[in-house]
């Protein structure tokens, strides 16, 4: 099939009209729906990028978020690292619109973009993009972002990066870009074990751009491996209190996926 962007403009317009007609919706309605989708996306994640939003909306042409920013519905902010160059957050009016249509209320600190932790930008955007990709591919039905999970935080249970919903299943997703060691790794494994044992989540997927991290975590979670349980002593120092042997079922409930690094 021919690439629509390589066709003459008049034919592109014809194709677009055909597509609109097939949807059975007016352009205004489609535009409103897209806007609400963007608001919902940003509300649930805090911020997004132009490429993620376009992929979510299925728009090939760029500049949609810029347009919304120009309309005062979004705020465009430059990143410190330059990767991505800009991120988009909700403005006051955008936030109002988003809250009016939201299913649950989330505290939106990103109304001030400078409160965003720039160190976590890459991590959070990867998690966002993986989620949107899964939605578009139809492998998941919905998701719960970390900021929504924060509302229902429970002690001793890992707050995952995002939870994917597929039918009755809840799949916890972790994006690991830097390797955990010692107590952090033990805690990581214990909290995954606790979350699955308590049936909070059915499975875990650990995404990483490092083969070493993936292999390392897989090795640490293999059946029979020993995991230390840490506890603070009277002087506030972390000490090993006891150990747990990793059960055989844990590795079957955790999947590891390598993602391409595009740095």
């Amino acid at each position, binding site marked *: 099939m021919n690439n629509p962007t390589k066709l003459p403009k008049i034919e592109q317009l014809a194709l677009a009209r055909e597509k609109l007609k097939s949807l059975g919706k007016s352009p205004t309605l489609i535009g409103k729906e897209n806007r609400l989708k963007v608001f919902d996306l940003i509300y649930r994640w805090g911020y997004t990028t132009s*490429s993620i939003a376009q*992929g979510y909306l299925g728009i090939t042409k760029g500049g949609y978020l810029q347009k919304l920013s120009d309309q005062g519905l979004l705020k465009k902010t430059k990143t410190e690292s330059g990767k991505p160059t800009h991120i988009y957050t909700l403005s006051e009016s955008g936030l109002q619109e988003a809250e009016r249509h939201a299913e649950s209320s989330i505290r939106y600190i990103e109304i001030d973009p400078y409160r965003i932790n720039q160190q976590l930008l890459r991590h959070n955007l990867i998690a966002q993009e993986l989620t949107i*990709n899964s939605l578009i*591919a139809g*492998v998941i039905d919905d998701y719960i972002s970390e900021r929504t999970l924060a509302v229902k935080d429970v002690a001793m249970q890992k707050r995952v990066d995002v939870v994917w919903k597929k039918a009755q299943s809840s799949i916890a997703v972790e994006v690991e870009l830097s390797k955990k060691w010692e107590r952090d790794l033990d805690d990581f494994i214990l909290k995954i074990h606790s979350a699955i044992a308590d049936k909070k989540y059915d499975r875990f*997927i650990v995404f990483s751009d490092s083969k070493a991290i993936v292999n390392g975590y897989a090795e640490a979670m293999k059946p029979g491996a020993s995991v230390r349980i840490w506890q603070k002593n009277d002087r506030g120092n972390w000490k090993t209190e006891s150990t747990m042997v990793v059960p055989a079922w844990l590795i*079957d409930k955790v999947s590891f*996926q390598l993602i391409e690094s595009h740095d």
Partner: protein
Amino acid sequence: MTKKLIMVLSFALLVGCAYKEQDKVIKKVESIVNVDWDEYVPLDDMIIAHKQCKEYSELDPCKKLESQLQDIATSLESCKSQIPRSTLCSAVINTISAHPIENILPETDAPSMPQHPFYLSLPTRLLDSQSRRYSYRKEVWDDWIQKYRFLFRKMILSTIIFLVALVWFKIYKKEKTNQAEMERRKIIREQKIAAQKMRDDEARKREAEAASKLIIEQAKNAEQKKLREIERAEIELQIAAEKLAAEEAAAREAAEKLMIEEMAKAAVKKSPKKK
């Protein structure tokens, strides 16, 4: 002196003669009073002895003679007072009254003669000694029987009747006793038979109970065996179901894992672009 001597000798002679005379009297009287009156009564000799005892009344034989005379007198008076007169008394009266001894008899009381044959002895020795000769007891017996014959007949009849009744009663009682005994034995026999019957019934009942228990036991065993077989089948079924469930779970798990892996791959299909 000689006069004195003659007097003494004469006195001694007299005394001696007196004593000799006394001995004779004693002997004579003794021979009379010692006569056994069962043989005869020496009335004549007694008169003579009475005369002789006039001087020697303190001597024992004389006292005995007086006693005998008293006896005769009493006999006579008793017989005189007996009405009707018996043969004995008639003989006594006839003999004594006609004899001179009547004149020397003392006055006395008249004890009555026994009018029944059950006396031990007659009032006097004379009457006793002569009673057998004149069959006084028999005579009195006959009179007495005659006197009470109606009563005796009645008594005899009553006695006979009584005896008959007694015998009859004894027989009747014996009959009754025998009857009662037979009845008792019959009852005992019947009781024994009934007891035996009851024992037999009990034994039959026990046998029937044992048999029914055995049947119930067998049925229970069969049911338990059946239940065990059902349990075993259920267990085997459960094991098979668990095995199947495990296999299904493993298959589901594998399928889920595959799905998750596909999910992960789909997620990374469009990886973040370089900015």
